[in-house]
């Protein structure tokens, strides 16, 4: 490559880099704009021109959201439901993934195909019968009712199976020689060797459940039993529209998952790539 060609190549490269960064800033702008608007007094929010920073910085809308709405109760509901689903789902998937990966039993292949096939089932199509089922169990408007249909993420089993498959056979044979039970092998050998994947899957399972909308929206009719995700869109102030208040509620609802992502960035991206069937 001669010098001129190299220089134009670099100029173009620099321009592409700049364009990428500019796009990223524009892309994330609505996030910034939402947060900034929630920190302005209501009369500043509706000014006919753009102010990128509040003239008077105020937390009044957050105070309002926390003390004058039911967001505290919704938060509790979301935390309980998301934690409950995460613990039950990850634990049962781990057990099942271990059995399929390490044990030989009749029906193993059939079970594996059943799990693969369930990928295709659109849960949105099952809302009617989920509702009937949960109503018959008397679980509408309860935490258990919101959790029940969300307890299955087949992909978690598949990821666990792949990771358990990769554990060298020597570890297993050594444990079997020591007369360790299957449970001991799972909890003392296989699980500790895969803490990374367990953490990653737990974080994304928590995020998925926190973000779920359709089912929690159907399963709950009482405002005090709503999850945050549903509550902030279903309960409006009775008199007039307060944009900044709505945005403050939105920021509060998004904060836990945004923080979970920012703290565990690598784990989250790893788990999400894994869940699409690509080995990271």
């Amino acid at each position, binding site marked *: 490559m001669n010098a001129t060609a190299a220089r134009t*190549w670099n100029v173009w490269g620099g321009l592409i880099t700049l364009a990428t960064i500019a796009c990223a800033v524009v892309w994330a702008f609505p996030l910034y704009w939402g947060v900034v608007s929630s920190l302005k007094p209501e009369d500043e929010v509706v000014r006919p021109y753009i102010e990128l920073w509040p003239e008077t910085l105020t937390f009044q809308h957050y105070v309002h959201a926390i003390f004058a709405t039911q967001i505290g109760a919704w938060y509790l509901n979301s935390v309980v439901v998301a934690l409950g689903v995460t613990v039950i789902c990850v634990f049962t998937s781990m057990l099942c993934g271990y059995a399929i990966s390490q044990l030989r039993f009749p029906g193993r292949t059939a079970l594996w195909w059943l799990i693969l096939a369930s990928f295709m089932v659109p849960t949105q199509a099952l809302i009617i019968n989920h509702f009937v089922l949960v109503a018959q169990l008397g679980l509408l408007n309860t935490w258990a009712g919101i959790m029940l249909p969300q307890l299955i993420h087949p992909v978690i089993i598949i990821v666990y199976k792949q990771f358990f498959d990769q554990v060298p056979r020597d570890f297993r044979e050594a444990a079997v020689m020591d007369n360790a039970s299957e449970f001991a092998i799972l909890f003392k050998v296989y699980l500790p060797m895969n803490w990374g994947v367990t953490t990653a899957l737990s974080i994304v399972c928590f995020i998925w459940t926190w973000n779920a909308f359709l089912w929690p929206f159907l399963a709950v009719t009482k405002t005090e039993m709503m999850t945050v995700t549903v509550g902030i869109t279903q309960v409006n102030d009775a008199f007039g529209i307060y944009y900044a208040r709505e945005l403050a509620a939105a920021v509060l*609802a998004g904060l836990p998952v945004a923080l979970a992502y920012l703290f565990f960035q690598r784990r989250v991206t790893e788990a999400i790539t894994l869940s699409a069937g690509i080995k990271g």
Partner: protein
Amino acid sequence: MLKDRRSDILVALVLIAPFLAIYLLVFVYPTIQMFRISFTDAPLIGAGSWKGIDNYARLDNDPMFRRALWNTLYFVLLTVIPGTLIALLIALGVSRLAGRLQALVLALFFLPYILPVSVVYLLWDWTLNFQFGIAMHVLDWLGIARIPVTKSATWFMPAVAWVTIWWTAGFSILLFLAGLRTIPTEIYEAAALDNASRWTTFRKITWPLLRPVSALVLTIQLILQLKIFDQVYLFSQGGRPNDNMVLVYYVFQRAFQQNQGGRAAAVAVTLFVLVVVVSVFQFQLLRFAERRRQ
């Protein structure tokens, strides 16, 4: 040895039992019930009498069902290919960066994906607000008349499609980045030695090697967008949901607002079959790609 084997089976049974119980309760049973009540005139809760294929026959000249089907396909058209292309472009840009800058830029593009749909809705409802939304200021600068986006029959779907692309692109970007990382740098070095232009390098190296990932992203997007509901529902609040009817919304309306479980189930079965057919196609495609790689 025989005793060992029997205890092995017993242990396996204990290990898979919790999963299997939940699976049968929330997957298999509701699926069977959905098919069953789609042949009855059952209300949302309660028994109905057998109607044969009546509910399906009625779909044929149900204008609302047609609109729901058409709008769903329109939404798929507006999101799947444009969204994948945008994600690919972003991924190509991000992959050129390195270190902390790359992590930061990726985080800016990825953050929306991690947020709940209701937060995304509130952010964009505010951004697109007819009176005060910042997007309207942009239209003013460009000298274009303001558009009440979410209240306009023409602009509703494109706007919701754009919001959906903004919301979900992070996921596709991540998959494309994973795909780009598997391409060995030696190939690019060889191309640079041959004085290959940027465009030739992309066309002859990057794109062919990315094709399996692109197929994956496209089909995941396709299946995801067929099941569209949340955003359409939220943006239609206080508007005219019937103009923006999509399949899942129609299931919801028939079952939960008109108390017609049987007729809603027929729509649900249609959606179910549609998604299963596309998924089988996707599975075959992936297997094909896998075989070609080996």
